[in-house]
């Protein structure tokens, strides 16, 4: 690794001032699982690391007005075992549980996983299907960005120089909703996905027809993405084999994967259709369970 300045502010405002001072030469570090690895491989050579590890107030998971807010410094492990998340958004705690190993989940943070903008990560996929938004702060300013607009390209988040991800907010799904996260792992349990899919489904009051659905895909493009054409087939539809197949095929057309050791691009496209079908079926069953529980 190259030599660099290291700053460890204890307050958000202090961190923002340092980020403004160093500009593009600064990189934010929290858990370090992604950045230290990239620095060791000399892919990144920052002039200054701004450690936000000791910044106060960014480590909470809290329920606020119909949504759950996860501070940027919440670790994957904390999200995985949070009773609040397990109760309100079980698909999200399950998704965090599927990331890497417990050792990595003890280190990696929720905000870091977003700012790293690696399309192979799991949490952004589920967060996108849940319609989450990112809270971003800079010296003297704050903005909220839907997660669908947050990823620009491979490892490139929509963050300007001096900006810091401080939280992610996840709206609680309406009644009669279900969700699923499916991660296709042909190699080892701690690997990145070959294809990852998250689906949310909300049913009409008849408990049979779909009112609204969101489909998010990971590992199949330069960013995580929504399968909007596939989603559009769902409102008003009833679950059946032909619907599952049509939605899978539509999602497959949104995928633009790379050949790598986790599979060829052609294989990943085919598996996108299969995994979307499975995720849709699971999310639908989860929503029907919710319908039965309210009756």
């Amino acid at each position, binding site marked *: 690794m190259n030599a660099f300045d290291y700053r460890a502010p204890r307050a958000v405002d202090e961190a923002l001032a340092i980020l403004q001072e160093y500009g593009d030469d600064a990189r934010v570090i929290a858990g370090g699982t992604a950045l230290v690895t990239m*620095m060791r491989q000399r892919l990144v050579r920052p002039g200054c690391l701004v450690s936000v590890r000791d910044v106060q107030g960014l480590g909470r998971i809290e329920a606020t007005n119909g949504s759950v807010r996860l501070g940027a410094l919440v670790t994957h492990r904390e999200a995985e075992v949070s009773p609040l998340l397990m109760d309100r958004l079980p698909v999200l705690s399950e998704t965090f549980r599927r990331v890497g*190993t417990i*050792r990595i989940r003890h280190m990696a943070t929720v905000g870091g996983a977003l700012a790293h903008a690696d399309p192979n990560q799991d949490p952004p996929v589920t967060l996108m299907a849940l319609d989450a938004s990112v809270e971003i702060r800079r010296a003297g300013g704050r903005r909220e960005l839907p997660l669908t607009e947050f990823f620009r390209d491979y490892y490139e988040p929509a963050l300007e120089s001096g900006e810091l991800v401080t939280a992610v907010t996840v709206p609680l799904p309406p009644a009669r909703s279900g969700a699923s996260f499916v991660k296709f792992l042909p190699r080892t349990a701690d690997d990145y996905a070959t294809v990852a899919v998250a689906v949310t489904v909300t049913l009409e009051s008849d408990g049979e027809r779909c009112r609204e659905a969101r489909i998010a895909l990971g590992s199949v493009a330069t960013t995580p993405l929504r399968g909007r054409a596939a989603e559009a087939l769902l409102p008003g539809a009833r679950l059946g084999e032909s619907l599952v197949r049509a939605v899978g095929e539509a999602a497959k057309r949104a995928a633009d994967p790379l050949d790598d050791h986790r599979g060829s691009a052609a294989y990943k496209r085919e598996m996108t259709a299969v995994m979307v079908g499975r995720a849709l079926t699971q999310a639908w069953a989860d929503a029907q369970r919710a319908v039965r529980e309210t009756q």
Partner: protein
Amino acid sequence: MIRLTVNGHSHDVEVPTYRTLLDCLRYDLDLTGSKEGCGVGVCGACTVLLDGKMISSCIALAVFADGREVTTVEGLAVAPEARLCDERLHPVQQAFIDVGGFQCGICTPGQVVAAKALLDAIPRPSDAEIREWMLGNLCRCTGYYKIVESISAAARQGRA
């Protein structure tokens, strides 16, 4: 200059910012039990506890440990000042010996530190819980059955 507590002893160490925690332990503090395997956080040979939580020390910076407590494999046996003659091994270490939980031994420090963290968190783990917890500690000799058995034995020992 950072001040960290390793296995109960406080150290002041002058480190460059790019020093990994693993290199700090091995080269600044001469604690060579923790190994560098993959160097990218995958294999588990460098597993240590930072404030009681197991982490990969090869991708943690030494500065992360400033003001914090680190436990390495050298700290699992009963502390030297408490011992009368022989060092008393941690139940996990003893179980790895009794059950044959290692072959070449290179992954073993990481395995026993991870297993200690498991038993601290879940004193009576099921086999499934052991497998999930330990899946990030690779053994190229592939002695996984004996490792799981060792941890089960240590857990039984802890209850006895």
